[in-house]
């Protein structure tokens, strides 16, 4: 009896365990499906080229968000999209530490065919978050307002990975050579130590020659100061008027800039459906950073976006009324020139990366010093 009782408890415990696992396995997918069905609206994210092939800060991605209601594209609704940059890195930094974890885009548009497309240059590697809010509009299909989150992962550019590997490898090699020189100088110190140190310092000093040349020069992009133009009013034919206001000016890396547009007809706000096209061009590198086509229920919109590079940008805002008899009105385009203030990287990030790079050099130096090397013995002998 005393032997059988523990065995029965073991069987009972095993039975409970199996039942619990079975219950969770059946219950969890059911709950997930039920959540999707209760919300009614789903969002499908597609990209051209595919997201796994996109290189950050190099390839302009064409991202399409499709809102589906019961599996069919949502005929009418309102969509708010916020794009958030990948979270802060804990070990190896990225080129844009001020951008990490910050909001990149906050756009909203009216949906007329269930899809919304944005062209965007993703700045850095990591996992981006699309927070999508979809709400019904009067006259459209009825559903519960829904907030969904989609994440996309952008891998690092293979060429950049190769460059980083070369940097790390080069530092390790330099450290190794230094260690070997030290080992030799320890063996024959009276002859070699002076020349070895001097030779190494000359090599390192050579790297600073271009720095000195740059310091003596002037007129680089950091010294170019242009007045930012954050407000413009365009007067069109037949009493049409477009006003675009950006704030705050100048823009700052890591912070959103709001763009407010007003489309007026004879001094009053246009009440109908309005097409808004926003194009952001990096002026120095002459490439498009953002291209977004939006629709507004009236002639007033508010969109926000972040400039992640501290360089002058041009923002073209093209607005056109699309409702009824005014659909043949020529589009109005306002062009804003914005200066973007780049903030220095956080000191902690710089110290962390300096420690990593110096650590690689020191490890290489230790390796070079302690590695058994044939000529060490010869030099010592």
């Amino acid at each position, binding site marked *: 009896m005393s032997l059988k009782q523990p065995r029965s408890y073991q069987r009972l415990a095993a039975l409970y365990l199996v039942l619990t696992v079975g219950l969770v396995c059946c219950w969890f997918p059911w709950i997930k499906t039920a959540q999707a069905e209760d919300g009614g609206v789903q969002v499908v994210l597609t990209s051209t080229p595919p997201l796994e092939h996109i290189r950050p800060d190099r390839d302009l991605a064409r991202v399409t968000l499709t809102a589906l209601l019961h599996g069919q594209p949502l005929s009418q609704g309102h969509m708010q999209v916020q794009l958030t940059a990948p979270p802060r890195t804990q070990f190896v930094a990225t080129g844009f530490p001020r951008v990490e974890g910050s909001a990149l885009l906050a756009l909203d548009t009216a949906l007329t065919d269930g899809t919304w497309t944005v062209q965007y240059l993703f700045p850095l590697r990591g996992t981006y978050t699309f927070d999508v809010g979809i709400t019904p509009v009067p006259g459209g299909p009825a559903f519960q307002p829904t907030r969904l989150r989609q994440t996309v992962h952008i891998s690092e550019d293979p060429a950049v990975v190769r460059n*980083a590997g070369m940097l790390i490898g080069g530092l390790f090699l330099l450290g190794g050579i230094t260690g070997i020189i030290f080992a030799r100088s320890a063996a024959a110190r009276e002859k070699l130590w002076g020349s070895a140190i001097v030779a190494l310092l000359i090599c390192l000093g050579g790297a*600073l020659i271009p720095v000195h040349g740059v310091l003596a020069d002037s007129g680089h992009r950091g010294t170019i100061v242009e007045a930012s133009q954050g407000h413009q009013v365009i007067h069109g034919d037949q009493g049409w008027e477009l006003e675009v206001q950006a704030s705050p000016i100048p823009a700052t890396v890591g912070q959103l800039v709001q763009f407010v547009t007003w489309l007026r007809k004879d001094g009053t706000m246009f009440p109908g459906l309005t097409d808004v096209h926003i194009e952001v061009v990096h002026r120095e590198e002459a490439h498009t950073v953002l291209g977004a086509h939006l629709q507004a229920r009236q002639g007033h919109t508010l969109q926000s976006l972040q400039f992640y*590079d501290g360089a002058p940008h041009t923002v073209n805002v093209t607005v056109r009324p699309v409702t009824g008899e005014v659909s043949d009105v020529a589009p109005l385009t306002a062009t804003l020139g914005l200066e973007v203030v780049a903030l220095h990287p956080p000191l902690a990030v710089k110290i962390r990366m300096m420690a990593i790079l110096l650590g690689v050099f020191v490890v290489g130096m230790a390796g070079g010093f302690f590695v058994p090397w044939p000529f060490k013995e010869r030099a010592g002998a």
Partner: protein
Amino acid sequence: MTAIQQFKYIRRQIHLFRKHNITLTKQAVIVVLAVAFVLYAVFFSNVPPIHDFFHGLRHAMGILPCH
């Protein structure tokens, strides 16, 4: 050369050697500091002309914080 002159010469040479000789630890510290200086100037300096000159290089590495 007399013995005294030879003795003085050798003593002077030993003095010069001791004066200019630095230990291995000091050599290593000097080199590490020199490397740290160059690395900071090229990859982390905020001075606008230096930053702008190496801007492309920093972004090409992908692991260096630029802004």
